[in-house]
């Protein structure tokens, strides 16, 4: 019940945020040079063709009318007609939303799976060879451009040792995860580089705490202390880091999408901006905003679950 109320409150907060975001996106796009009708018709258009298309697209009407119309389309869920694709924006976004969510979700899981053991190893061997090796490895991974790393891994794991497919989405759930592994892994490396550092330092702090000594002194087994006390208490700050980073990943995977031919939202946004596909960019902006808010929400809930002192209210 508390959770429901909390969620509802958060969603309500979303309304003014969305309005603000759509207004900014709407105005920014129209300030950019380049007009959609000219872009669509390219070298083939005559002045009359361009004028006709401009009217057809409704771009000759006053800005406020266009904005209101967009709000109306948004409420109806269609988000208007895409200029480039000649079809409703909503379904086109939805088609790719799942791909993006799968990629982001998969990479987050991989990041978590990597973070916990590596951070524990680093913290327990603080200053030692293992600690440094982990640090160096992930710093190197993080500083390699995703594009470069992607091509390298494909050359290694798809061409030299054909374990993974070069790119694409595959058919069905399992095949899909198999296809998404390399791209998700590369994103996860970047995320893990951050979360491992964060978790390692809080682990080190918690390990110094008195209650850990107490726990050990009263004879609890080291494994239990480590997992139940040390890890749980250390995870809290890392959850926020993970949440913030995941919000960024949602729109920031354009390069990975390009290298692995994944039809995700990031690439669609990029090409839609280039094509001045106003309704599509507006629809995507709203989608991204909603996703970021949802991730923050999930972060807060996870936070509360990890730390009993935090109340959802």
């Amino acid at each position, binding site marked *: 019940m508390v959770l429901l109320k909390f969620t509802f409150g958060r969603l309500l907060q979303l309304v003014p945020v969305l309005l603000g975001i759509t207004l900014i996106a709407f105005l920014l796009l129209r300030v950019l040079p380049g007009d959609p009708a000219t872009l669509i*018709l390219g070298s083939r258009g005559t002045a009359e063709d361009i004028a006709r298309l401009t009217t057809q697209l409704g771009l000759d009407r006053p800005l406020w009318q266009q904005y209101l119309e967009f709000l109306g389309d948004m409420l109806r869920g269609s988000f208007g007609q895409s200029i480039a694709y000649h079809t409703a924006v909503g379904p086109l976004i939805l088609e790719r939303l799942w791909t993006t969510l799968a990629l982001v979700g998969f990479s987050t899981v991989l990041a978590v799976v*990597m973070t916990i*053991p590596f951070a524990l190893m680093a913290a327990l061997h603080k200053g030692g060879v293992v600690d440094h090796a982990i640090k160096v490895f992930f710093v190197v991974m993080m500083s390699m451009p995703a594009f470069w790393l992607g091509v390298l891994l494909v050359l290694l794991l798809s061409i030299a040792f054909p374990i993974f497919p070069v790119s694409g989405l595959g058919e069905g759930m399992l095949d899909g995860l198999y296809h998404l592994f390399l791209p998700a892994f590369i994103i996860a490396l970047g995320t893990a580089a951050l979360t491992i550092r964060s978790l390692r330092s809080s682990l080190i702090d918690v390990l110094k705490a008195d209650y850990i000594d107490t726990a050990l002194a009263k004879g609890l087994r080291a494994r239990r202390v480590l997992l139940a006390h040390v890890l749980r208490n250390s995870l809290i700050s890392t959850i926020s880091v993970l949440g913030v980073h995941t919000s960024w990943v949602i729109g920031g995977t354009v390069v990975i999408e390009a290298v692995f031919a994944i039809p995700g939202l990031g690439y669609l946004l990029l090409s839609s901006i280039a094509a001045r596909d106003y309704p599509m960019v507006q629809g995507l902006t709203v989608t991204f905003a909603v996703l970021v808010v949802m991730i923050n929400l999930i972060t807060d809930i996870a936070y509360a679950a990890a730390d009993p002192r935090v109340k959802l209210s």
Partner: protein
Amino acid sequence: MGAHEYTIFGRSSRKMRLGLSAAAMFAVLATAGTVWPAQATDLKVAIASDALTLDPIASSDNASIWTELLIFDQLVRPSKSGTKLEPGLAEKWTVSPDGLEYTFTLRDAKFANGEAVTADDVVYSLQRAAGEKSDWARFFKPITKYTVIDAKTIKFNLDKPFTPLLNNLAMFSASILPKKEVEAKGADFFQAPFGSGPFTVKTWNHGEKIVLSKNPNYWQAGKPAVDEAEIQVIAEDNSRVLKLKAGEVDAIVGIPFNQVSQLKSDPDLNVGVADVFRIELVQLNTTKKPFDDERVRQALNYAVDKDAIVKGVLRGNGKAAATALPIMAYHNEELKPYPHDVAKAKALLKEAGYENGFKASMLVQSGDVTYRQVASALQSNLKDIGVDLQLQGIESSSQFSTTKSGNYEMSLSYASSDTIDPDQIIGFTSINPERANAFHTQWKDDRVNALYEQERQTLDGPERGAMFKEMEQRVHDGAPFIFLYHQGMPYASRKNVEGFEVLPTSNYRLEDVVMK
């Protein structure tokens, strides 16, 4: 300080350490999952971009056009060599000697749903293409009257002769659609359209792939040889090449020039370079000084070493250009590219009063590797004659509107032809005003304009050819552009794929592909 503080964990639990290492290994490897065998293959082709729409009258991007040409038939179509027209849905046709009456006889063809293609479908489709919603109306508007003589015969009348018409009828925008279906379904029809062409749309995952299946009713007996053709979208050039090497696709279109020769030496692949109807050039804004002076424009042409660019940047996959037309029908073979002659260029500049050179800026698409390399080659070439060229990066989507507004000095760009007749592209690059004020150079030559009018009303033949040749010569001399090169389009397929080729019109006929 250091690790010893926590040795209680480090020392006491060797098992735990093992467990941790195992978990770390798991993190890297375990999700690798099972490797499963490749599925039985139908033809898979990877191209750079997704079709935006499959409605022929609303398409102008290559991916849409190429796919539409696999789904729909037109009355006539370009031959594979791109030099003449051959029968499509029309088995035969006649043009009256005055060029005002066209009569077409349809072959016995069926749409993919089994219904016969009739004269009504033709009239409906062409009127739609010439209609209000069409981006291509002006190509078909010269037809003023359609007469259905019987189900298989149809007559078009024109008010005045318009020779390019037959070529325009071979364009994707003149695709013959099943009238009943389009009328019943409206815009939805084009989400999974079918026509009388070799393939129909099975599924379309936007941004990922279009799966085409064989049209069982296709009129060319025995074709297509494949049951399914999958057009995959792989935007990144390197990824597309890797995908082909790994055997995940059977053919790709578009290869970075610096990888062509390496792929040619791969024993598993066939590599080809299509001579597509395309010309790369630098637009010169002839309304601005010093580009208003013909001598200056010629000097720029003499200063550029085109052969070196073709060799260095295109790795030999192209040809130096002499004029603003692709090498296609009626091309003036006698015309030679401006030779690389620095002394001559300097002399011309001196004559024009620019002995000490000048400063100029050039728009270059940012993010395009080939263009960037060509631009720096131009920069160093022009430096030799004292011209200080500043490069101005521009996003590809605003380049056209920028040059259109006239707010530029030089702009590195290209033009390509949708038809096999030079009328369309000469109208675009060389006629002012017509469609684009001679591709935004504002260059104007009354003789060229007059020849253009005349050519459009002269029946195909040597007489019309002579007009094009004269226009080409005058454009060459007037030099509203720096004529650069004709760039080839590299493509490749795996050895077990037979008959995959990119045609001069840039599209591919997958109905001719056989998988061994």
